[in-house]
């Protein structure tokens, strides 16, 4: 068969130019074979926290050790691996019932979610908390179809809080980032308190509507099965508005001071919510992974100062690496406008590998 000339010449030549073999030894990573990293990691995770969680390596999902919890709405989340402790670290009493880790930075598959859903369904219905990425949304939809076909009541709430992305009906919309962690905690507490699926769904929408985030990167990260940095960032530049998978952001600019960067992240959040004097907020300053706490607290301190000076009350805080991008250096800020219910549920006991208080 004769192929058209344009194909065999131009297209093929582009396609072939860049392939090269990848050896794990090329990478500064504590891994064995890249294709085994997720299973080996969740196996270790399960061994470390066997009192709190159970790891199922048949279909790769993590449930509470005592699943299914009876007479409560079950919360299932998931997404690509590489964002640890999210989501596996949030499985436990008062937060998630199950988490489904995909390949690194790749949405999990419907069968994982379906198996997880069946394993945690306690009869009061299942809420899927989904970060707004096409892959996550589509795969969770397929899983929900499968579960509903077996008579399980399933609802999904899609988190889309990243102000770095312009929202629009005509696009995939905003990404889901930091607010996901807060929604999982708050809705997990509501489920634990016996709220109905309908109520937990409404609450989750409410948290999403009141949470906004923006992140930045100083360096790229390297996905194990790719073997080289996701993007190149010159020595004197940073990326503002980065996504948690190394997706390019809003702008690339020269390095700036922590104070300036904090303002660049916080200003669009405050404007978008919008926040007003006397509002009470939860301030969540997150490390993308490679940024040490020493620096993260500098950013937190400045963000706290800016909000306080604007008359906004920082009523609750979360600081640390909670929704990460492997070893990427950088930080994100999430602000959640609180009401009494959210504050109470935030304070409620939680007992997971990554977040615990009140128990």
């Amino acid at each position, binding site marked *: 068969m004769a192929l058209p000339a344009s194909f065999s010449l131009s297209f093929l030549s582009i396609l072939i130019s860049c392939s090269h073999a990848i050896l794990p030894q090329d990478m500064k990573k504590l891994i064995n074979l890249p294709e085994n990293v997720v299973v080996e990691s969740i196996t270790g995770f399960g061994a470390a926290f066997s009192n709190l969680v159970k790891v199922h390596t048949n279909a790769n999902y993590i449930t509470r050790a005592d699943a299914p919890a009876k007479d409560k709405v079950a919360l299932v989340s998931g997404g690509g691996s590489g964002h640890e402790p999210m989501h596996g670290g949030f499985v436990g009493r008062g937060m998630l019932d199950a988490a489904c880790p995909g*390949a690194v930075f790749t949405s999990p598959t419907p069968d994982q979610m379906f198996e997880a859903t069946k394993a945690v369904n306690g009869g009061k219905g299942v809420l899927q908390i989904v970060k707004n990425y096409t892959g996550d949304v589509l795969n969770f939809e397929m899983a929900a179809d499968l579960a509903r076909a077996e008579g399980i009541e399933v609802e999904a709430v899609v988190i889309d809080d990243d102000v770095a992305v312009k929202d629009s009906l005509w696009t995939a919309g905003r990404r889901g980032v930091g607010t996901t962690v807060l929604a999982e905690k708050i809705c997990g507490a509501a489920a634990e308190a016996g709220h109905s699926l309908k109520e937990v769904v409404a609450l989750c929408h409410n948290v999403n509507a009141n949470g906004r985030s923006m992140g930045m990167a100083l360096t790229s990260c390297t996905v194990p099965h790719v073997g080289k940095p996701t993007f190149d960032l010159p020595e004197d530049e940073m990326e503002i508005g980065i996504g948690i998978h190394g997706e390019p952001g809003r702008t690339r600019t020269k390095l700036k001071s922590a104070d300036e960067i904090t303002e660049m992240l916080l200003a669009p959040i405050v404007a978008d919510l919008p926040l007003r004097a006397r509002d009470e907020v939860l301030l969540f300053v997150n490390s993308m992974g490679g940024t040490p706490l020493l620096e993260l607290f500098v950013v937190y301190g400045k963000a706290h100062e800016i909000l306080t000076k604007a008359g906004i009350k920082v009523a609750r805080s979360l600081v640390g690496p909670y929704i990460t991008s492997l070893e990427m250096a950088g930080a994100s800020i999430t602000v959640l406008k609180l009401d009494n219910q959210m504050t109470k549920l935030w304070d409620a006991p939680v007992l997971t590998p990554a977040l615990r208080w009140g128990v």
Partner: protein
Amino acid sequence: MSNVSSNQIFAWIERYAAHIAEQKDYLTELDAAIGDGDHGANMHRGLQAVLAKKAELQNTDVGVLLKGVAMTLISTIGGASGALYGTFFLQASTTAEGKTELSSTEFGSLLEKGLAGIVLRGKAALGDKTMIDALQPAIKAYKRSIESGEVREDALSKAVSAAERGLKSTIPLIARKGRASYLGERSAGHPDPGASSSVLLFRSAAETLC
């Protein structure tokens, strides 16, 4: 002209796996530019899993074969492409239940049903800078060619050209669906990864189904 046999369909998938294996780093690079850098790895993982099921997928009817391909892609890829290519083959399989061979016209309907599944699942349209920009013109070109009485070899060859033009057309576009949409205007100037893997799907077809 002879019909497409289920063995040929399997050969198509096998060839597709080979092309993806060869191009996976390139596809990943395309995805790194405007997405998250995993499209090549995703497709490769899925198609290798399909190959591993060769024994059970060969020597069945086209419906069972394509359903097996679909379920394997869905359960091993994850990501947008897993759901979308999976849906493509799942919907395509419904047109071939119990059949061990397909006429050229039937193969066209199979492709159309698969594409309809992608559109329904992903809610993207032509010009959104997705795989649809390669798949839709390719399938249209195939159908038109067959309808005008040309042989399947020519129809597939035209489909490949149309897919390539579709891929090229994605370069200047601003993405409206998928991860690339987060980039807004910065997504322009890059070919869409999914459209690239779709070109390979038609190239594999042209190489095996004639």
